[in-house]
């Protein structure tokens, strides 16, 4: 059975805000260990509600691994919640 890594890691994110169906687009993020990852595709963006708090979930890839980024719209923070790169 394949492995997946669930995390709760605070990250720095560069995102652009524009128009269209997905106005917020994370472009690049830096992990706690200093590693920088450039996002090549946003797979899906969906909201996740925790009570009256909304988290925006971005499932993204850099072409080598899949990541899940969570943007807390109340606290304006980004977290890395998941990494899956075990498909070789």
């Amino acid at each position, binding site marked *: 059975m394949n492995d997946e890594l669930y995390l709760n890691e605070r990250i720095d994110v560069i995102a652009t805000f524009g128009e269209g169906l997905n106005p917020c687009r994370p472009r690049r993020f830096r992990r706690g260990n200093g590693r920088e990852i450039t996002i090549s595709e946003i797979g*899906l963006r969906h*909201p996740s509600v925790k*009570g009256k708090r909304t988290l925006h*979930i971005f499932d993204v890839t850099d072409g080598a691994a899949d990541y899940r980024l969570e943007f807390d719209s109340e606290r304006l923070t980004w977290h890395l919640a998941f990494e899956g790169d075990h498909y070789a």
Partner: protein
Amino acid sequence: MLEMYNTETPLVMHVDLNSAFATIEQQARPMLRGRPVAVLNRRTEHTAIVTASYEAKAMGVKVGMKFKEAAYLAPGLIAIESDPAKYRFVYKKLTSILNDYSPHVVMKSIDEGVIDFHGLVNQRPMIEIGHEIKQRLKNEVGRAMRCNVGIGTNRFLAKTAAGLHKPDGLDEINHTNLRTTLASLKLTDLTGIADHNQSRLNGVGIYTPLQFLDSDQVTLQKIVFKSIVGLQWHQRLRGYEVDDRVFDMKRIGRQYVLERRDLTRIQIMQRLHHLCESVGSRLRSQNKVARGVYVYAKTAERHYWHASRLCQLPFYSDKAIYGLAEQLFWQAPSAIREIGIHCYGLSDDDEPQMSLFGDALAREHQLVDALDTINQRYGDRTLHSADTLDVSNFIRQKIPFGSTRYL
């Protein structure tokens, strides 16, 4: 014979996401695209597969198969645990797209919906609308998303058309191609005909959908189905609408396959308590009260045990539901592998209840409403019984397949 078929222009469209959960996972995680993927409710080898991607299906993987068996058939099969929030989002997107075309949209389940175009004026060609819906799904959800679109004169033929060319098909069944289409199918390809009904039909010499279509109404009604169901099949196959019905909610329930076989009775009761809280929450979300509780257990030897109790007064609190379930469940056998509970005897919560215990019921109502308000504000299970504190890691909210009531 042609005049017996519904010759009107097909105006019912069925839209069905292909291998929905697996496709959504492949959309969300691009690294999964083109690979065999199985979506499970729990990532263990003994869990049944909820959805398989088309790549996995091509290797022989079927829905309902245990992951361990499937992994033999499909080396490299990737197990993904289901993610209800994601599927709910896509369901809402699909619903929103379908609602743009007609006020008469019914979502049949989390991954399929029906649009009825009857009564709309200046209608564009249905095929054109079908292609547009496919494109909008890609634009508004993601480029890996695919759906089948079926067009027919009734819901049954539209659904049958949607299943003709998976994945990503678009077909229409009308009175001119009805016979040729049915000739290419097996009886069990028809929605509503599984093994049992197939045996009934075989019993009177009906072995193919075409023979089914050509059979007379009396045979179906008096001999095969022995009820009005036979008449409905006679009309349904000819393209007349008999399925435009809304069924009342009869019961609300949940079940859970135990994560281990060596749990103590107290641990099993904690899990039952958790299910009761979940059922109570669903009951109240539908603004219903119940009068009956039904519990069941399946043992490792596949023995089915059940017990139920119908009360005079309606109830709707988690405490009341668990109180009844607990009393019933102490008679359950040992070596349990699955437990379940449902509430029945449902009625609307706003019906006035005259009772000697009116004050007590009103107080319970207020308390439960206050708890629900807190949970709605701060998130599910912010407040719950201390008895179920350690159970949430095992029992998670899953997507109900057949119903869209809780989405």
